[in-house]
């Protein structure tokens, strides 16, 4: 198999990896916001349940969680899991990453001076206006480096989808490497993840620069 054929057959894998990446961000970023609000809830029951949730998400391997999400419905409820592969992956990734994002958001929110809330209250802003106009923009600036870290980890973690035999980049690399007894697919995979993360770092740096006008 020539190099270009290898690259072509791995192309679909790259697209699938990108699909996992973007769908996970799409769901996990806002979901993390919700988890953060529950984690900061005044109600101790809600707060503690959320704490346990975050502890499980961060304390067990994502690979194991993916297996649970995919096979769980069959073993627990006898449901058919045909065609459920991609949804299980996206649910598993989103739910897992939302726990990490929630904690990043929480750190950002708690770093904002309480005086900002008081000033907004005195000026008559509603709670929603205070959050979206005054607090959130400052939080985004504070948490950007941590979010970058997490997003870079996500790029590499997409390879865990191979556990559910989803033909993304990494699964295909393994298959082709085995069938062709060649090491090249792994090199291609490595270069792919590296370039993807280079782009992520570049974009995030641009956003950081754009928010550099104040401190």
């Amino acid at each position, binding site marked *: 198999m020539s190099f270009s054929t290898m690259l072509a057959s791995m192309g679909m894998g790259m697209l699938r990896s990108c699909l996992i990446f973007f769908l996970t961000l799409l769901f996990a970023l806002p979901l993390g916001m919700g988890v953060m609000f529950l984690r900061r809830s005044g109600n101790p029951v809600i707060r503690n349940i959320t704490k346990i949730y975050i502890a499980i998400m961060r304390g067990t391997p994502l690979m194991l969680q993916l297996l649970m999400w995919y096979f769980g419905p069959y073993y627990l409820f006898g449901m058919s899991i045909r065609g459920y592969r991609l949804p299980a992956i996206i649910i598993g990734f989103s739910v897992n990453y939302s726990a990490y994002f929630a904690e990043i958001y929480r750190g950002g929110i708690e770093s904002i001076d309480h*005086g900002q809330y*008081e000033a907004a209250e005195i*000026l008559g802003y509603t709670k929603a206006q205070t959050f979206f106009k005054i607090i959130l923009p400052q939080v985004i600036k504070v948490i950007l480096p941590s979010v970058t870290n997490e997003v870079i980890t996500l790029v590499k973690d997409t390879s865990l989808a191979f556990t559910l035999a989803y033909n993304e980049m990494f699964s295909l690399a393994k298959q082709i490497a085995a069938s062709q007894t060649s090491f090249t697919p792994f090199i291609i995979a490595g270069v792919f993840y590296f370039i993807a993360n280079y782009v992520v770092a570049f974009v995030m740096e641009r956003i950081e620069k754009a928010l550099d*006008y*104040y401190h």
Partner: protein
Amino acid sequence: MILEMNSIQKSFGDLEVLKDISFHVDEGEVVSIIGPSGSGKSTLLRCATFLETINAGEIKYMDQTAVTTGDDGVARYVGRNELNQIKRYFGLVFQNFNLFPHYSVLKNIMDAPVTVQKRPVEEVRAEAMELLRKMGLETRAEAYPCQLSGGQKQRVAIARALALKPNILFFDEPTSALDPELTGEVLKVIRQLAEEKMTMVVVTHEMPFARAVSSRVIFMDQGVIVEQGDPEAVFGDTQVERTRQFLRNYQR
């Protein structure tokens, strides 16, 4: 009467910070509150501006009741809508400015009138520029708070409070976070407002300023008003030993 506070009590846990405080502010008055640290001055201001909730007592703005206390001794605030309406009567300038760092100077001043009061942008902009001129900061309209000195930040904060056209403006130690050489420019602005008959309550440690600008001085200690009156009477020859002691310590 713009503000009336009667029999205010406030505790933090077991600590009684305000013990039965009553005072009022008339239109055009400049009231200075002085006293040692921990006397309850700032807490009184925070209760007046609803940043803290009182345990008992009564607060009225422009004869509109914000809090009352029934026979059971529990303070009851009016509903949220009414309270929000009452909040429009006052502004507060903080010790630490609390400007919004991600907004330019102009936006800091304009945003609340536009977002909260829903006033037309162009009208608000003209007023904001006028306020900046008054503060001597017209050239810094596009600057961000991090590019300003402490004195400039505090003047922007004053402009921001004035942009909402409050009936009464509170100052919580407006110069305490400033380098000594920067306090003058802020005090000058407050003095100018006093000349324009702006109603103000100023918690301060600047005794010469309080003496020169106030129409009335309140001396607080350990959660009570020890003495209040004409600044010359309080600073000149107070008959109260505790006040005398405090002022003597200050002159040293």
